């Protein structure tokens, strides 16, 4: 039914920021098609007038008092960063030719 092609897997991987190998692309194309086929049964039920549920226990307007609380320790955050320079996260280039 809902066959997911190699090209679609490559597209999904790009959207999801996953640099898949060629082997993975083939494997996932097959597996994702099978999974989507299996879960597509949801379209059999649930007529138009059924409201969707996004949250099981609806809670609205959740506020807390606006009081000062200690934040997390800067040095601990730095220690957990993959690259840290001049008191900042060092990141790869954001702009470029590509």
């Amino acid at each position: 039914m809902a066959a997911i092609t190699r090209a679609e897997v490559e597209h999904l991987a790009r959207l999801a920021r996953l640099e898949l190998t060629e082997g993975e692309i083939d494997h996932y194309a097959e597996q994702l098609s099978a999974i989507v086929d299996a879960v597509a049964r949801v379209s059999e039920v649930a007529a138009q007038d059924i409201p969707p549920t996004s949250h099981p226990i609806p809670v609205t307007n959740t506020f807390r008092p606006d009081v000062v609380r200690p934040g997390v320790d800067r040095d601990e955050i730095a220690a957990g960063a993959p690259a840290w320079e001049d008191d900042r996260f060092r990141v790869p280039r954001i702009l470029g030719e590509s």
Partner: protein
Amino acid sequence: MAPVMDSDLVRQSAATLSAAMQAGEVTSVQVTEACLARIEEVDDKVHAFLHVDRETALATAADIDTRRAAGAELGPLAGIPLALKDVFTMRGVPTTCGSRILADWRPPYDSTVVERLRAAGVVILGKTNMDEFAMGSSTEHSGYGPTHNPWDLERIPGGSGGGSSAALAAFEAPLAMGTDTGGSIRQPAAVTGTVGVKPTYGGVSRYGLVALASSLDQAGPCARTVLDAALLHEVIAGHDPRDSTSIDAPVPDVVAAARSGDVRGMRIGLVRELGGEGYQQGVRQRFDEAVAILTDLGADVVEVSCPNFEYALGAYYLILPAEASSNLARFDGMRYGLRAGDDGDASVEEVMSRTREAGFGAEVKRRIMLGTYSLSSGYYDAYYGQAQKVRTLIARDFAAAFEQVDVLVSPTTPTTAFRLGEKLDDPLAMYLNDIATIPVNLAGNCAMSVPVGLSPEDGLPVGLQIMAPALGDDRLYRVGSALEAALVDRWGHVLTEEVPAL
């Protein structure tokens, strides 16, 4: 020191240990030492733990002993050791969530659950193994190798919380913490002969949990007895202003319910759609026997139909990957965790893609792509939108059922523990393990798995699931403890006493 203690220390329930500590018969340091020695002795075979924090555990235990000796008022779980699933952040202690992408990460803050455990004086022994980002039913998707079921080391301990369930069944800890998004507390409990509870959604704070699917995730207690689970439930539950989905209402009196264990006059519904075809013969047999016990104890058992439950698995595997693909976008290699391929030339997008490729395992990638697919334009209405409607239908099935009965019951899992490797690269077969546990997560109500014996075919544990309405958590404990008491009476001990020597 009383004779019951000493070498048997690790086999005692938290409630027994607590009473012994209060009576001055044993210290928290002794109990903690016993658990650490047991971990040392058996964890090479079981691999329940990813990290053991010996020094901190002993320091906490010593502190509790000192305070107790000084006459301080301490809660019932003060000084009791606990195994913490690696999904909970704990300040300064490795928190990997079973993923290589967080291999060396030490969180700069405590989750609310950890904060409450610390405040209650609970001794946290270390972090337990799990399927990567809680995606799985066997721990085989852990980035650090699988956990082995203490009942049979060739078999899975359940998942995602298989490290926590195995730690209990291997007597490495009397208490453990889990999280349950589609069955990750209850299914491991069922296949290891232990007790696991998924509280009402919002009953326990999610602050500081590494998120899988935020509208489904719920933390809960794991133990070898129903009362121990209740004692832990009481410590961790309750409103938390740091979790906007936390319920601002009193926690049901689960400890009193566990102590009462009275089901006379309770109306119990058998879910017609959970338990027939596809369920192992021995699972059905033990389940039927347990139901007969409940009838004997004075409960009024009737059959109930929840016709939309058959669509739950499909809805779940659209909603969960959708939420997971969004939640896991935070693992981008920029602020914490792994960074791969940052050669000074690659762009930020390339580094993100290489990091995620290198850091995520196969199941995580599968679900991220599945979620990305179901949320993409053109498919959104057909898949994600439909799944959300099915969610409404399932909640309506529960609502209708709870007009007729107080609780629902079913087998927790269709089969006993399967062999490691058996379903590893067969995602659909793996997903079917959660067929009976998923409806509760979709509707947000609460459920428990309690052991009801060993399946005659393979001698492996069978779990019975009890489901109650939202904020009816105390009903789980009433039914669970009634059943447990009757079975202990019959067997002469709790089921985990039959775990073979490791």
